[in-house]
């Protein structure tokens, strides 16, 4: 409890299944929160398979990483990499050469407690799976966001993860539904947001539409949130505001449908 009274909030981004967009979400929420004048650090906890640094465009600035901090080769401050454009945004990269056992849940609690003193938001990018790496990222979480796609297999894994989070008394987690293709939903070819929340029974905090700009932005190391014209970027900015406790009305992804208005009731915004 003492930890929660400190300044910063630890938000863990996880999913169960790989490739649904955890790292992209982490990078974009980090950028979006920093642009709202929050002091933010994003932490890559996927030891051995780091890539948050690539999406953030900070790969070439890495000197020390998370494992260096845990094993005492570097001070926490030395491992913080400042973002190029946003002075309030920092990254702690994962180690490339080690595996998940190099860090324990206790280490993560210790490190995040240090970070809480300096930052408003500490965003942890969890690895896929339900093993040690997931438990490392979950242990210090104040809030858990689950990223899933409107696909049966991704939803199944998200369900499993939600059960594990409940068992650790870390819930209730909130849901980010990523890569939604509205035209496919309308044709009944893709699970709708309601189909997903019917099964998972947790609150949505955001729906990210499929957007080609996300891929090119990630490849260029410039998170899509920085692109004002991107719908996905807009959706991430809305999630950031909701994380700060704002009640943000749902973004109309298409002007000619009442579908998304009906979705509004699924949201936490009261």
């Amino acid at each position, binding site marked *: 409890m003492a930890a929660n009274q400190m300044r910063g909030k630890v938000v863990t981004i996880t999913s169960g299944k790989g490739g649904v967009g955890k790292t992209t979400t982490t990078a974009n929420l980090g950028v979006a929160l920093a642009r709202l004048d929050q002091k933010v650090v994003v932490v890559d906890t996927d030891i051995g398979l780091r890539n948050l640094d690539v999406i953030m465009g900070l790969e070439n600035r890495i000197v020390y990483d998370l494992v260096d901090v845990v094993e005492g080769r570097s001070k926490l401050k030395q491992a913080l990499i400042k973002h190029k454009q946003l002075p309030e945004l920092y990254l702690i990269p994962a180690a490339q050469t080690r595996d998940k056992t190099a860090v324990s849940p206790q280490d993560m609690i210790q490190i995040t407690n240090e970070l809480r003193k300096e930052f408003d938001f500490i965003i942890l990018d969890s690895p896929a799976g339900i093993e040690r790496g997931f438990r490392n990222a979950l242990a210090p979480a104040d809030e858990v966001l689950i990223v899933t796609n409107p696909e049966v297999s991704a939803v*199944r894994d998200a369900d*499993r993860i939600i059960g*594990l989070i*409940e*068992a*650790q008394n870390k819930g209730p987690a909130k849901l980010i539904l990523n890569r939604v293709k509205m035209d496919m939903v309308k044709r009944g070819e893709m699970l709708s947001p309601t189909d997903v929340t019917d*099964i998972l029974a947790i609150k949505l905090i955001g729906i990210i539409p499929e957007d080609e700009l996300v891929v090119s932005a990630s490849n260029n190391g410039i998170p899509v949130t920085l692109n004002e014209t991107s719908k996905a970027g807009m959706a991430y900015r809305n999630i950031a505001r909701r994380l700060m406790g704002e009640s943000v009305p749902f973004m109309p992804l298409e002007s000619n449908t009442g579908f998304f208005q009906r979705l509004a009731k699924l949201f936490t915004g009261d």
Partner: protein
Amino acid sequence: MRDGLVAIKGVKDGLLVSLNESEDWQRVINDLAARIDEQSSFFAGAKISVDIGTRPVPKYALSSLKALLERRNLMLSVIISDSDTTLEAAQALDLRTAIATEKPGQPQPTDTINPEEDGSPGVLIRRTLRSGRIIRSAGHVIVLGDVNPGAEIIAHGDVIVWGVLRGSVHAGAEGDTGAIVCALEMTPMQLRIAGVAAQLPNPKRRTPAPEIARLEQAQVVIISWNR
């Protein structure tokens, strides 16, 4: 049961270890370790189910029990317990769990007036069963919540789901052909009664309504609850 701390018996697919519910946990565990070490050839390679009873056991204690067995090359296959704390700790360790419903040591109620009111064993689970959760019970299972795809219930008796049944269910798993399954919305992944698998219609064509499944002439029939 010789000294009352640990009871061990052979079951279908391994050994069932029942731990005393009231003695000091560490004493019980030490006794278990001693028993295994005494008869290591008897135990060698066995799958172990551990019945912990009603005692709430925290995660670290379960974790050290698991480690103790693993050091002796034994696989901890299932944790059986009546305690939510213990079951959740076991879930957190990714152990399979089962809820104890029949206590061999427990006296059966004797002064019967109406046999139906004597109570057949059952468990009530007041939460949604999410993917990966498996409930095994020697009695009936009642779930107040949904049973999601990837979750599974295996009951010797009936299964009642006050919610949407989307996962897998086997009622009458030990051969009770009178067992039933009912749910507010019946769209299971798999449904079996006493080993007979149901032919499930395409869930998309069904209207959600309470239904009940039972065996009729060795076939599973699913009918609407409104008779």
